[in-house]
């Protein structure tokens, strides 16, 4: 890793890594699957869900990346998976079982159909 030796260094480092981070640039075509993996999510089975997502992504050759995140705050609905696509509002899935995780990849990512029954409707004012 490089040493950042000025504020300029930090800024240029930021622009270099931005494309690989959890932030989506518009029109990048990337798809991210954020899985809530704080203690609450892990206890509810988030690691199993992540494993199924990874396996399905590989099996179907989908261009998507998994981001293990902290707690979304909706502990009652864990495990949770958020589908982030550039230029589209995020879709939050709650109560995700390994079966639902499979369907998220197959139906949402491959066929482009949202699994309406599993969607949690959340609106949070950001910073």
């Amino acid at each position, binding site marked *: 890793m490089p040493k*950042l030796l000025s*504020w300029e260094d930090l800024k240029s480092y930021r622009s270099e890594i931005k494309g690989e*981070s959890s932030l989506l640039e518009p029109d990048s075509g990337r798809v991210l699957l954020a899985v809530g993996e704080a203690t609450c999510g892990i206890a509810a089975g988030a690691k199993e869900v992540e494993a199924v997502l990874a396996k399905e992504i590989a099996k179907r050759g989908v261009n998507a990346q998994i981001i293990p995140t902290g*707690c979304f705050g909706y502990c009652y609905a864990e495990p949770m998976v958020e589908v982030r696509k550039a230029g589209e509002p995020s879709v939050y899935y709650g109560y995700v079982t390994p079966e639902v995780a499979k369907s998220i990849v197959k139906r949402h990512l491959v066929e482009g159909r949202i699994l309406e029954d599993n969607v949690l409707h959340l609106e949070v004012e950001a910073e």
Partner: protein
Amino acid sequence: MSATQTRIALRNCGVIDPESINDYIATDGYDALAKCVFELKPEEVVDVIKKSGLRGRGGAGFPTGIKWETAMKTPSDVKYVLCNADEGDPGAFMDRSVLEGDPHCVLEAMAICGYAIGASQGIIYVRAEYPLAVKRLQIAIDQAKDLALLGDNIMGSDFSFNLRLYLGAGAFVCGEETSLMNSVQGGRGEPRIKPPFPAVAGLWGKPTNINNVETYANVAAIIRNGWEWFRSFGTEKSPGTKVFALAGKVNNVGLVEVPMGTPLRTIIEDIGGGIRNNRRFKAVQTGGPSGGCIPAEHLDTPIDYESLTSLGSMMGSGGMIVMDEDDCMVNIAKFYLTFTAEESCGKCSPCRIGNQRLLEILTRITSGEGEDKDLSELDELGNIIKDTALCGLGQSSPNPAISTLRFFKSEYIAHVRDKKCPAGACIKLVGFKVLPEKCTGCTVCARNCPVKCISGKPKQVHSIDQAKCIKCGACMEKCRFKAIVRG
């Protein structure tokens, strides 16, 4: 559902990968530190925090900027920055979520504080019971050091700041700042009298700034966006937001961040989705073992430090436990007193002996052995403990008893005079009886009674021998005809 939430402290929780410093940097991470180190003088940093009106999120609500200013102005060759991550209230998990979801935001804020007060060393006191938080914090510290965002000569500047973790052994009193510092020094987790305050003479007698996790979680956002921005949230006296761990009998258990001044009702009914199983709301407990229970008639109270204190409760660290009609308030008070009596360090007698006596009174009342004078004694003794205990633990431990006595006196009276628990929670005061008009004589209750105290012939009304009954409730649970009730 949660349109009323505003996320500042939790801005990155659930958004970024907490084990990736690149994710944090991509969301403008460490820009606030760079701005301080390269553009602001220490006193200017303190000024921004003072003007923001940020107050301690660990419970007492002391103005953060004043703490920083005192530590800055106290001359010393060595100073320390401490983070209190010894979250110990039953049902509270705000700090754990911040540490597990966005550890870098705490590190960055501590470095900013170090720059402001002139400290080059920081310690995060985190409970060993939070292994994932400990792991992610250590990863974050190592990553930040690798990039020269922590350690010696941060970003090539003259400012150095080294951070390490100190694992707490799980004593509740170590959340009290002077006990925490004793623990870091290798001593017993016991408090000492203040003043001197830590900002003047803290760890190893040196000026020390100590803030809670959530307080630090606000700092970088304030520096980046300005104090005016922060003041646009919340109220005049309590600016910004507060994170609450919503637990108990609500439908949507979880972590909530709302602007200060939001009514309790909004959190419980709108965000929390109301009470589970269509039961009726009875009270909300805020502030953990140091707080009190707030009844339905005060649900429209705006959440800020002063309002909650005036109701005999407190903000506390942000635990919020919702109770319904099945919860007995006397029993709840007993639960919290059991906790504090056990966690009292024993250094001062009001806390060591007083809480034990309070617990004995509450145990008598919930066992049906209470007398009228117990109620006045509970109130009097509780207030004496509050006035005379050495530290925050003892000064607030009677709150659960005093506040329930204030708002739910009729329930105490029912226990003491009628020997009845209206909520049906105090096992020694509950009885079960058979409703003759509903009993079909199916014998299921008799066969399931563990002490065989139910008698009756098949197809005839059964009866319970109250003297033998152990009040386990198995009969009521098994009866398919709802023929057995409490009473």
